[in-house]
């Protein structure tokens, strides 16, 4: 294999970058300190391309492409932050706020929440669409953890970390469309789940206050994700 097969050079926002063949635009941008917004993606977990926040413009492509799921290519010209993309991102985050019941002032994750950070970075000061105010439940049946559906953004990080890293596959999704929700086992209360190992990985990958440790008050829930790059690295070396 010649070197050109393995290394691709491209331009992201006018900056020359290079990436390995198969590497995603998001990863290459990250290495070059070019921030691209994302919510469902998390390094160390598989890619789903579901939040659509990392969509970028690629010259020659009619469609917007998800940076997390698009491999770099030779001579690619990527724009990550056009006005059009900024508008879309703002609207997508706005849609998330109307979908659930996100009340920062009473949330355990206030100040440490990815949704909150995203909203601040796009300058979302008010919501221009009506809120849905859905009736959603809180599952406090687990001994140590809490699930609050009101704060869930359906990024499925919990589903993936439990399946791919812990190997328990306690979490999954049920329902469809606006009625989708995360469930434990076959929609049993979390505390009665037979597959859950109570490892807590789901809690710490969750971007919002939907999954938290019991006993935390407002703004006290800080997520610790150091385990993920460590486990991924170890797994890579093992293989």
């Amino acid at each position, binding site marked *: 294999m010649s070197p050109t097969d393995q290394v691709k050079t491209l331009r992201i926002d006018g900056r020359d970058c290079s990436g390995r063949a198969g590497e995603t635009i998001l990863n290459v941008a990250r290495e070059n300190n070019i921030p691209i917004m994302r919510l469902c993606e998390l390094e160390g977990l598989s890619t789903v*391309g579901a939040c*659509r926040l990392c969509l970028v413009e690629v010259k020659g492509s009619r469609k*917007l492409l998800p940076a997390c799921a698009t491999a770099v290519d030779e001579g690619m010209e990527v724009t990550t932050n056009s006005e059009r993309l900024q508008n879309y991102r703002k609207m997508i985050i706005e849609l998330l706020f*109307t979908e659930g019941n996100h009340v920062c002032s009473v949330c355990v994750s206030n100040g440490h929440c990815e949704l909150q950070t995203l909203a601040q970075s796009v300058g979302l000061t008010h919501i221009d669409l009506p809120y849905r105010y859905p009736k959603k439940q809180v599952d406090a049946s687990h001994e140590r953890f809490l699930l609050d559906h009101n704060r869930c953004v359906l990024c499925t990080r919990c589903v993936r970390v439990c399946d791919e890293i812990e190997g328990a596959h306690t979490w999954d999704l049920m329902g*469809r*469309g*606006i009625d989708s929700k995360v469930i434990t086992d076959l929609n049993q209360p979390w505390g009665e789940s037979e597959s859950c190992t109570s490892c807590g990985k789901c809690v710490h990958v969750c971007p919002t206050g939907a999954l938290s440790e019991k006993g935390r008050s407002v703004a006290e829930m800080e997520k610790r994700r150091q385990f993920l790059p460590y486990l991924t690295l170890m797994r890579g070396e093992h293989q």
Partner: protein
Amino acid sequence: MTPEELEEIKENELEAQQNVPQQIHVCVAAGCLSCQSDTVKDALTREVEQHGLGGRCKVKGVGCMGLCSEGPLVSTHTGQVYQHVTAADAGEIVESLDAQPVQRLLIPTDVPFFERQKKIVLENSGTIDPERIEEYIAQDGYRALMNVLTEMTPQEVVAEVTASGLRGRGGAGYPTGLKWSTVAKAVGTQKFVVCNADEGDPGAFMDRSVLESDPHRIIEGMLIAAYAVGASEGYIYVRAEYPLAIKRLKTAIRQAERLGLLGADICGTGFKLRIDLRLGAGAFVCGEETALIASIEGKRGTPRSRPPYPAMEGLLGHPTLINNVETFANIPPILRNGGAWYAGIGTEKSKGTKVFALAGRVRNTGLVEVPMGITLREIVFDIGGGIPDGKEFKAVQTGGPSGGCLPAEALDMPVDYESLASAGSIMGSGGMIVMDESSCMVDVAKYFMDFCMTESCGKCIPCRVGTYQMHRILSAITNMTATEHDLKKMEDLCDLVKNTSLCGLGQSAPNPVLSTLKYFLAEYKAHVHEHRCVAGVCSEKATV
């Protein structure tokens, strides 16, 4: 099975048919069955026996004859077609075989509905018994397969399909030959061929009818495709709501296996293909190819990002060819008559014919097959017979929830992929719903948005929440509570959902709204500013 043996089955069947000079065909596809055509068939069989015509006259169940609204339909070997036949009419029909036709039940067959159609996909529908492989073989069935296996290389088959100009009939219109050659060139020890029979557009029943009326055509199409791309396993993903289609497919697969046309070492050439059925559990999104693959794999049926396309990484990670029912149905005639023959039908970029399910406010509702390039006017007014009850034509909806509503100005547009797309609609799988002045276009847009909202899988945010918000605004408009600001918001949402959704369902969900905004903006404005529904549909339901 050798070509000679196949020919022998054909000869025997034709001889057996000629030995019975009189034939009565009763439609036993879902449309006519739902109005008890099975009791009509039983009654006709009884009458034939009572009249002592047992050896001379045969009553047989056949597939769809097209004019579904007038069912149950019965036809005779002399070419008469009878409508709304009941068991009580059986005696009269049997007696008429040697006398004058039964005038009161007769449908004239020299009308545009029959004369303007061109049947390729539906060539056997309504004439052969879908539950007997011999009848399919008698109509030159499996001859194309035999020829392909013994005379042609896979590359030649792909070249023939490419030359035909056939494009995917599932909706998007991707060139079939190109898709086949991509899968054929993909590297893999195992390849799959999948038939997408998860037809789900409201009002569309083309694929259902083909499966119920001529199931062997799909199997032959899949066999030829499998040979061309090098696949050895096949799946037909058919929705569980089509029990009759499933039953007939199972029968057809068993029959083909028994004759050695399906299974291991087909026709002694070493080529093998196994076909299994997979039943969809009622999710519209499973018609999207990556969701369909996930569903076959036993996973939650949600789409994933493409690339990689299924042609490279499909079912279980292997190269997979996915085509729609109607696409496969076109394959045997193309290989029998040559790609050039097929390319001679239709327009420059859209070749061949297209089957449409004509429904709504039109005189003749049912299934029609027309050459590409025919105008919408010809379909609606000539073949469809125009609008009943002296009402005015208002719009025709093509392409289901991913399509759009086209106004009277668009009636003279030719029906092909590009023209429909440029007008803001799509060819789609073939649903065609005609609307008259009694339909409110905002209400229609709301109906389709409701469909997309409930059928959204929920994976990506723009589709999951965007369709909900658009539906809410459309509800507000039909309730006369919306403002100009809501209209502006809806345009923004349309733009967002169209451009940022993960799969085709989301990307096309705004089409019914966009097309009605484009052609019927006045109706939206009347709702918002004057609290008035032009068609009188919404004012009755409105709360203010």
